[in-house]
């Protein structure tokens, strides 16, 4: 038993509020004021789970966190590890003529996508990450899960099931918030993180794979876990660079100031890192990083960072390469902001888009051939709607814009939606179908696609049952074909997939863009 003190505490039935006196007997609550606990008497309740009981399910919304007192729980992803793939690449002459795309679930082993992040683990809202090839882990006494859900109201990132009979404390945000300020509780969480997650966290970043176990052990006691409240600045553009950061919890906004405003460069979530450009370059921060919600980062000091890059040349070269890529992308974005003055272009978010499906309304006869073709290409579920904002005589159809400022990525509880280096939005295999990205997309361009899959029937162990699982989908540009189906099927030469800045160059008073201003 982790908590000897539990022996003296009388267990109350499931759902009963935990008495303040009982909480104060637990070491993690010892720093908390008794008055606070008494005032918030109903904010922490007893939870008892029998072996096999589900504590919480992935994708569900909630507002509480769980702290395990006794017993063990498994944490797993029930949604199949697979992405939605449009299948139907034509091989023979006849199939080339008649090929039709079918959406299906394709695991990474079967369909390894180009430029895919080499992730070995899946970030979840618990002190452990899940291994990509076997997304199951075990949690035990003294471990907390559901922090992100509780603090930021994100959907549950995984399904937690009692492996043995368990006793847990379920707490509301006010209690967790105070607990997180308690030194004793922080120390325990930090210890758990260092012991259980730091290794996988570091090794999940491909450029850190070369670190030896000795060095990670050395770092283990030196890294610092730092929390930031929503809106708080973690590091400011122009300040001296003194640390390197790994995101452990929450979302970090990276932005750069420019005359007349702020440009969002990226959103970083668990497993991402920042601060290397300043440390490797001139020693000053090149962008401002701030917490979008409750954020926790692992801070590696400049001294340890320098020791690391000196000792491991491969890590240094990897970081330098990434830093160069990021700087180049940032420069490109700033160039664009400075050269696009048109207010309505900006107001409609078109500057943020990398690829737009535009319909020339002067040519479009509103026959809906594009929508029909899209639906035909994707199991009858269209990924475009012939409605949206107008810019001049063009309708910007409701179809993924591959935004440079991808708000859809903010909040994904498992970090499954990301951008390729080409800035294309991609939904990873471990999407749990919570639909948060779909709700976050300001343009309504992400749809949920249902699939019937065979899943473990927990009521009848050893048996499987058919269940409907959802996965997020967005326009895939019909990459299996040379041209998107919507464009290919337009009889009136009205539908085009375009790079907005090139396509609207003339309207924006710029010189006409590069050759191939119309893609598709």
């Amino acid at each position, binding site marked *: 038993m982790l908590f000897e003190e539990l022996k003296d505490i009388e267990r109350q039935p499931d759902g009963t509020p935990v008495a303040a006196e009982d909480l104060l007997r637990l070491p993690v609550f010892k720093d908390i004021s008794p008055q606070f606990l008494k005032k918030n008497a109903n904010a922490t309740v007893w939870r008892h789970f029998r072996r096999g009981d589900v504590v919480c399910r992935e994708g569900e919304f909630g507002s509480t966190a769980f702290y395990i007192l006794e017993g063990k729980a498994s944490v797993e992803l029930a949604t199949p590890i697979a992405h939605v793939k449009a299948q139907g690449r034509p091989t023979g002459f006849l199939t080339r003529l008649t090929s039709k795309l079918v959406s299906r679930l394709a695991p990474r082993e079967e369909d390894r996508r180009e430029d895919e992040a080499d992730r070995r683990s899946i970030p979840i809202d618990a002190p452990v990450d899940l291994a990509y090839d076997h997304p199951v882990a075990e949690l035990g006494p003294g471990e907390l899960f559901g922090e992100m859900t509780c603090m930021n109201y994100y959907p549950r990132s995984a399904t937690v099931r009692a492996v043995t009979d368990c006793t847990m404390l379920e707490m509301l945000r006010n209690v967790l918030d105070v607990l997180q300020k308690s030194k004793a509780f922080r120390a325990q969480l930090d210890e758990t993180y260092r012991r259980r997650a730091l290794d996988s966290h570091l090794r999940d970043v491909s450029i850190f794979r070369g670190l030896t176990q000795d060095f990670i052990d050395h770092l283990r006691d030196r890294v610092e876990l730092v929390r930031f409240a929503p809106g708080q600045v973690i590091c400011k553009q122009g300040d001296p660079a003194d640390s390197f950061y790994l995101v452990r919890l929450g979302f970090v906004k990276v932005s750069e100031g420019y005359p007349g405003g702020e440009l969002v460069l990226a959103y970083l979530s668990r497993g991402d890192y920042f601060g290397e450009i300043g440390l490797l370059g001139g020693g000053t921060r090149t962008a401002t990083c701030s917490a979008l919600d409750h954020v926790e980062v692992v801070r590696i000091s400049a001294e340890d960072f320098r020791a690391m890059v000196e000792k491991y040349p491969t890590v240094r070269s990897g970081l330098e390469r990434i830093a160069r890529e990021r700087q180049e992308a940032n420069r490109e974005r700033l160039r664009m902001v400075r050269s696009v003055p048109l207010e309505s272009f900006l107001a409609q978010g078109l500057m943020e888009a990398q690829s737009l499906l535009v319909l020339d309304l002067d040519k479009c006869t509103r026959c809906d051939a594009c929508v029909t073709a899209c639906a035909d290409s994707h199991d009858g579920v269209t990924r475009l709607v012939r409605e949206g904002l107008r810019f001049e005589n063009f309708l910007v159809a409701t179809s993924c814009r591959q935004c440079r400022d991808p708000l859809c990525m903010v909040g994904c509880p498992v970090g499954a939606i990301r951008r390729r280096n080409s800035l294309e939005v991609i939904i990873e295999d471990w999407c749990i179908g919570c639909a948060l990205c779909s709700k976050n997309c300001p343009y309504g361009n992400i749809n949920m696609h249902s699939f019937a899959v065979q899943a473990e029937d927990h009521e009848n162990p050893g048996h499987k049952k058919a269940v409907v699982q959802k996965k997020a989908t967005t326009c895939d540009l019909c990459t299996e074909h040379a041209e998107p*189906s919507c464009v290919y099927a337009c009889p009136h030469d009205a539908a085009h997939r375009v790079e907005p800045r090139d396509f609207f160059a003339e309207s924006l008073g710029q010189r006409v863009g590069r050759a191939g201003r119309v893609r598709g």
Partner: protein
Amino acid sequence: MRIDRTHKGWFIASLVIFGVVLLLYGIYRVPDASQSMGGTATGLWFGSVGFAFMIFAGLLGARKRVPVYRLGRAQTWMRGHLWLGLLSLPLILFHSGFRYGHGLTALLMTLLILVVASGIFGAALQHYMPRVMTREVTMETIYDEIDHVRAQLLEEAEGLMKQVGGGGKSAASEDQGEPGGIAVAVADEATPVRNFYERELKPFLEEPGVHRSALADAALARGAFTQLRALVPASLHTTIEDLEGICQEERQLTLQARLHLWLHGWLLVHIPLSLALILLGAVHAVMALRF
């Protein structure tokens, strides 16, 4: 489809084909009025090519039914449909030696002229109307959603009227009161708005095409709303503005529906006639070759 300079290639190719067949017709035409041009080798060739063009033009419908099939871009098919379909007319005229014929041939010729004429009419509509729709219908919605949007507008208007609330029944609902019942009119500041809504706006929103409402005309509607504003205090002007906005959107929907009908309605003539033409054309070909 917009006929613009991107059609240049098709236009030149069609012109060349037309020049060649015209030349061939000039050389091989049958001067004797008693002889049939269609029965000659050249006449048969004209007929076959013209019929092949018609079939190609007719296949556009089939092509649209399988939009995903990589059978060539739909716009290429559409251009072919327009230009080859048009060329089929002179070819068939050369095939017939400019004679109308009797019975089936006369019917075929009538059908061909109607099909080509309706096609040209449709092409002209699809050339101009999208621009008209873009310019005039700024609040355009998806055509199939029009009824739904209309229901929402009505709901919105009802909501506004509920907000106006206030005194008892409007004069309009008093008039429709139960026989023998005692209708008590309670006049308040909002009464003119409620009366206007019940008598004018509601019927217009419920059945926009049925009643010949003054609100269907932008200028008359503007006048009516201006008049209404003068009858009520300023506190109700925002509500009137919202109602005017709803009314304007309704007019836009009506206009969109009308333009949509123009854009696609002609197909109700063009498609059945085309199918009949191809079917009867095949019968004519079999009969002519066999007998």
